[in-house]
């Protein structure tokens, strides 16, 4: 019981680890995952710590592994996740690992470099192939034009081409006899126009460019060469592979005709600027064909070489892929260990590392065993020592949870992590949360959908868990599967109580209402659409055995009836929930031994809540029990009664009318008494505690306490002297540690003695900084305490009213849910029922599908989400505000599993 109600008892421990055994010990502790180490060198830079070189080596290894992983993924080789979890390798194995990775990386890089070179070659050849093919068509167009006259040919050129040629003809005839033609600037038209007698020699370059750059390229050419060039381009249909990035890119072949050397250099510069690759292109068709054949054979050769390279690469990667995951785990474990070692202190002799950690008292034995295993593995002869220390620091909160309670614990923690050893509401939440949810979501049908969906996930949780689905929405559902399961089950129950299944009712036990033959003859039944039932005549007198009588399903005033019932129900549930919360605060006060809080907080708040609303609950029950249908006119109105109670208004409006409720005189007095008591609770809560504390601070126990402390401080020098002696001893002989370090096994048994005997078991290095952290007793500040208490009081008193009203959401959401499902039934599914025949059957199928989808999407998912949020709010605000402070911090043990999970996500 205690284990579930409160967080684990924690203790601060000091560990003395031999330098050579430290690594293995920490590794064992990491596997265990029960120890949270404190950083003892918070002021030291990351790069000035002791094991920074090892961490760097780990990072280097990680980088290589990432590189390998990237390559493996690029090739689409599945990485084997065997799920084995190797121990962290010994430090000396690091060298082996490093060399393995190094070798693999180098091999990979070499293969990649080769492949890249080959691919580049291949790309060039392919581009050349395309150029030859495309330019062929350009030239062929020319050839067909040859028989035509020169001018016709010019006219067919696009505008700038024409201008260029004309320009060339008139102004630069000398350029046409340019002797210095390089191999790619061949005379193009010279041979083809021999009879014109004008040796018009145009140069050309051919190349390949990225398709998206074409427009800018063309514009730039036009501008830079003033229109004196002629560009033809054709798209390469199939994408080419970029050898560096491996992306598929689309390119275009272009050919530029120009004239003269100056233009040539300019065109080349532009090509270079736009990263176009130029290729030599022979001028005659025969040469081109010959070249094309050469290119084709070379491409084929290259293809075989490329295939072999890929094969080799694949083999290397497949071998690596088998191990990559395991390697990652190993390296990450090593890195985590060194990170932890960096948090440790080195003792004066440099022979052992000193660590401080929080650990649960109940697990000290296991930790001790882990340390022993670690020491044995390292082969060290000197045992590692675990000491408990006393500390004024607040320990972390560690709630053990199973897979069942984890979801509920998360709900509580999302609001705030409990203070150390505070009552943990998670255990109560496991029931109250699904229940309050179900009150709002009351429908057997929807509850069943929810229940079975959750049941499926729960039954298959091993498979789902192993699959590690990354989808966030699924993850949310998966984490909350037990919550959903319980919510579904409770909804079935509340749905049964409200007698609601897809907005219809079940008549299991037979309705307790009947229509006597006397007034309801067949004639009257067929004549009137609506009939009124008088409960005095048509009700058997004993209620429907369980839940709501199904007859209400047909009643016109169903909503009025259920509203009244649900409203009262939610007030009763809400008030009980809040009473329970206040009761839990008693557990807290008793545990933390604060009797003052019991008298000044717990009792007045209990009395206040009872006087205000507890009484209302009693009246609800009274009204339910004491008045039956025959005297319903005389039943008191709860709302008016409550208002009048606070206004002290007991004037009788209808003194003579016996049919109306009259408050009896004795009750009047009692009600007045309650209101006065509730009113008195406010100053009680507000003033008593701060003034009492001030009184104490001046004269009472606190002063005495201070006196005692002062006396203890007088004794303190002994301890310090003791300590100093110990330090000196440590410098001389190591075994002098022994008298001060006590085996934890002994500590477990009489830790109270320990606390008194050895106030300080600090090592020299740590003591100074620990003392700083230990807070000084704060001087009593009356103003602060008073303001705090006043705020608390006002918050509580106003809260009682608003929170009670807030619980009415139980009714409101339940009403909304019931109405929505009824609307869906009557507006959608009924259409399917209304038509008959074969068409009607098809119609029904379609309408049913529509209805079913809407039911799941709107009623189960959306309404479920909204009811979930409201239940969440009722727990966080209305319930937990009564006792839960939630300002603790979570216990975060050094645990390999978590570290690996976390880094796998990155």
């Amino acid at each position, binding site marked *: 019981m205690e284990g579930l109600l409160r967080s684990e008892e924690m203790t601060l421990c000091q560990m003395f680890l031999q330098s050579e055994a430290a690594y293995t010990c920490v590794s064992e502790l990491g596997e265990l995952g029960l120890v949270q180490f404190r950083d003892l060198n918070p002021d030291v*830079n*990351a*790069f*000035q710590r002791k094991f*920074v070189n090892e*961490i*760097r080596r780990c*990072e*280097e290894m*990680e*980088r290589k592994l*990432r*590189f390998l992983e990237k390559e493996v993924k690029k090739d689409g080789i599945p990485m084997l996740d065997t799920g084995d979890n190797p121990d962290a390798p010994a430090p000396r194995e690091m060298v082996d690992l490093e060399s393995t990775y190094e070798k693999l990386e180098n091999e990979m890089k070499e293969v990649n470099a080769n492949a890249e070179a080959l691919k580049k070659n291949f790309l060039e050849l392919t581009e050349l192939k395309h150029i030859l093919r495309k330019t062929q068509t350009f030239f062929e167009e020319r050839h067909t034009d040859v028989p035509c006259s020169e001018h016709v040919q010019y006219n067919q050129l696009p505008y700038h081409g024409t201008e260029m040629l004309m320009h060339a003809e008139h102004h630069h005839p000398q350029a046409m006899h340019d002797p210095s033609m390089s191999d790619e600037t061949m005379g193009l038209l010279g041979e083809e126009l021999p009879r014109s007698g004008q040796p018009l020699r145009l140069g050309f370059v051919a190349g390949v460019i990225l398709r998206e*750059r074409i427009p*800018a390229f063309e*514009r*730039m050419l036009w*501008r*830079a060469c003033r229109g004196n060039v002629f560009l033809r381009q054709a798209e390469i249909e199939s994408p080419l592979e970029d050898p560096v990035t491996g992306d598929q890119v689309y390119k275009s072949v272009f050919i530029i005709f120009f004239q003269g050397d100056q233009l040539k250099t*300019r065109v080349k*510069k*532009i090509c*270079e*600027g*736009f*990263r176009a690759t130029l290729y030599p292109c022979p001028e005659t068709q025969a040469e081109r064909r010959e070249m094309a054949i050469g290119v084709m054979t070379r491409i084929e050769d290259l293809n075989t070489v490329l295939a072999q390279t890929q094969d080799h690469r694949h083999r290397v990667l497949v071998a690596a892929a088998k191990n990559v995951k395991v390697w990652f785990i190993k390296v990450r474990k090593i890195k985590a260990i060194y990170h932890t070692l960096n948090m440790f202190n080195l003792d004066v002799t440099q022979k052992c590392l000193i660590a401080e950690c929080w650990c649960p008292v109940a697990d000290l034995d296991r930790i001790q065993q882990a340390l022993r295993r670690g020491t044995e593995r390292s082969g060290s002869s000197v045992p590692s020592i675990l000491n408990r220390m006393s500390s004024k620091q607040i320990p972390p909160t560690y709630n053990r949870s199973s897979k069942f309670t984890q979801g509920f614990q998360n709900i509580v923690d999302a609001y705030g992590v409990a203070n150390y050893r505070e009552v943990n509401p998670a255990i109560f939440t496991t029931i109250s949360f699904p229940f309050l949810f179900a009150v709002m979501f009351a429908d057997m049908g929807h509850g069943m959908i929810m229940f079975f969906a959750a049941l499926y996930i729960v039954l298959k949780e091993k498979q789902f868990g192993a699959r590690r689905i990354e989808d966030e929405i699924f993850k949310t559902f998966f984490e909350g599967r037990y919550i959903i399961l319980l919510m579904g089950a409770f909804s079935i129950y509340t749905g049964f109580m409200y007698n609601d299944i897809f907005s219809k009712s079940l008549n299991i036990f037979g309705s307790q209402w009947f229509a006597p033959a006397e007034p309801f003859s067949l004639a009257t039944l067929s004549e009137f659409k609506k009939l009124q039932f008088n409960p005095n005549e048509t009700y058997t007198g004993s209620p429907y055995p369980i839940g709501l009588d199904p007859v209400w399903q047909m009643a016109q005033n169903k909503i009025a009836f259920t509203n009244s019932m649900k409203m009262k129900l939610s007030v009763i549930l809400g008030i009980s929930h809040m009473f329970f919360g206040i009761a839990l605060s008693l557990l807290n006060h008793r545990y933390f031994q604060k009797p003052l809080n019991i008298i000044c907080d717990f009792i007045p708040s209990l009395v206040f809540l009872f006087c205000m609303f507890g009484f209302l609950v009693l009246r609800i029950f009274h009204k339910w029990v004491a008045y039956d249908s025959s005297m319903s006119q005389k039943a008191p109105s709860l709302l008016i009664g409550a208002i009048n109670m606070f206004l002290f208004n007991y004037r009788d409006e209808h003194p003579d009318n016996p049919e109306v409720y009259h408050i009896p005189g004795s009750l009047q007095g009692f009600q007045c008494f309650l209101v006065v008591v509730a009113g008195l609770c406010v100053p009680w809560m507000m003033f008593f505690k701060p003034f009492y504390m001030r009184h104490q601070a001046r004269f009472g126990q606190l002063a005495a306490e201070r006196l005692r402390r002062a006396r203890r401080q007088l004794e303190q020098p002994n301890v310090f002297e003791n300590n100093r002696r110990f330090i000196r001893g440590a410098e001389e002989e190591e075994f002098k540690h022994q008298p001060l370090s006590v085996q934890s096994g002994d500590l477990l048994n009489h830790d109270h003695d320990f606390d008194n005997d050895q106030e300080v078991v600090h090592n020299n290095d740590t003591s100074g900084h620990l003392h700083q952290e230990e807070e000084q007793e704060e001087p009593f500040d009356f103003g602060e305490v008073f303001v705090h208490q006043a705020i608390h009081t006002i918050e509580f008193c106003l809260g009682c009213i608003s929170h009670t009203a807030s619980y009415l959401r139980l009714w409101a959401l339940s009403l909304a849910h019931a109405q929505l499902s009824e609307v869906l039934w009557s507006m959608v599914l009924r259409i399917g029922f209304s038509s008959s025949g074969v068409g009607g059957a098809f119609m029904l199928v379609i309408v049913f599908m529509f209805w079913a989808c809407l039911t799941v999407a709107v009623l189960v998912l959306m309404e479920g989400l909204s009811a979930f949020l409201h239940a969440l709010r009722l727990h966080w605000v209305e319930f937990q505000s009564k006792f839960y402070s939630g300002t603790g911090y979570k216990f975060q043990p050094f645990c390999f599993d978590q570290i690996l999970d976390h880094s796998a996500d990155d």
Partner: protein
Amino acid sequence: MFPELSFNIDHGYLEGLVRGFKSGILRQSDYLNLVQCETLEDLKLHLQSTDYGNFLANEPSPLSVSVIDDKLREKLVIEFQHLRNHCLEPLATFLDYMTYGYMIDNIILLITGTLHQRPISELISKCHPLGSFEQMEAIHIASTPAELYNAVLVDTPLAPYFIDCILEQDLDEMNIEIIRNTLYKAYLEDFFNFCKGMGGGTAEVMCEALAFEADRRAFIITINSFGTELSKEDREKLYPRCGKLYPDGLEMLSQCEDYDQVRTVADYYAEYKELFDDAGTNPGDKTLEDKFFEHEVKLMKNSFMHQFQFGVFYAYVKLKEQEIRNIIWIAECVAQRHRAKIDSYIPVF
């Protein structure tokens, strides 16, 4: 009527984002740790614990300063591109304006490079990626400013700024400097007017920042022109006319003949007087340039005090640039084992 009312509809997300980015800027304590680094590996390790995270994780050691520089810049560029890709008008134009400055620098870098016969690929890698544009790599075909304009720049947003420098002269060092400053002048004035037209908080913050930028350029141009063949009239044409110095201060600056005269001009302006007073050339003193940077950092930090305005985007990029300069300075000092001056970075926060 109140642009602030509807600011968040279009730009609220990005403003929030950039304010979040801002909180990742290194603080004084980070710099204190950085200057203690012994090697670049140490530097990397410390930067890992800051907002830079694992930006160097995939770089094989040994690290070099240029790799760090590239990566730092890459991070800024990614952030800026993210902002640019998600923004709406008029923020889009505003962000574009910010890149024009880098474009001008790139153009000048490329022209100077080609003048010295450097291969274009080497130059391209030195260009700031924020200022890259499609035609940039073909810039070396131009040999005169007119050609440069007609062939390359006419399609870029810089074209209107270039109108003033079309001269049928060859590109030499002097002319390039004149082109750079004329471009910058036109750019600053245009940006200034754009921000002024925006009104509201943007105008308030950006006009202040751009006015300072303009005045800084005016001072620097004047000081650098001493001892060169630049005539006073030419010099006056290069001063951006949107700062606080305009018009009287610029008039006086154009007549200056040595550093002390510049100083007298600065004395008329309280904020600049302070900068000139503290600056010195003696060892241990801060240079005028550093003082200007410090003042800029102060202005930029202040611009985060205003909400619902675009100044934060400008300020963030400027602050980040200062941070990159700082880290590179420290990295260079560490790499060259020249620790004496390692402390002369300019802390941002």
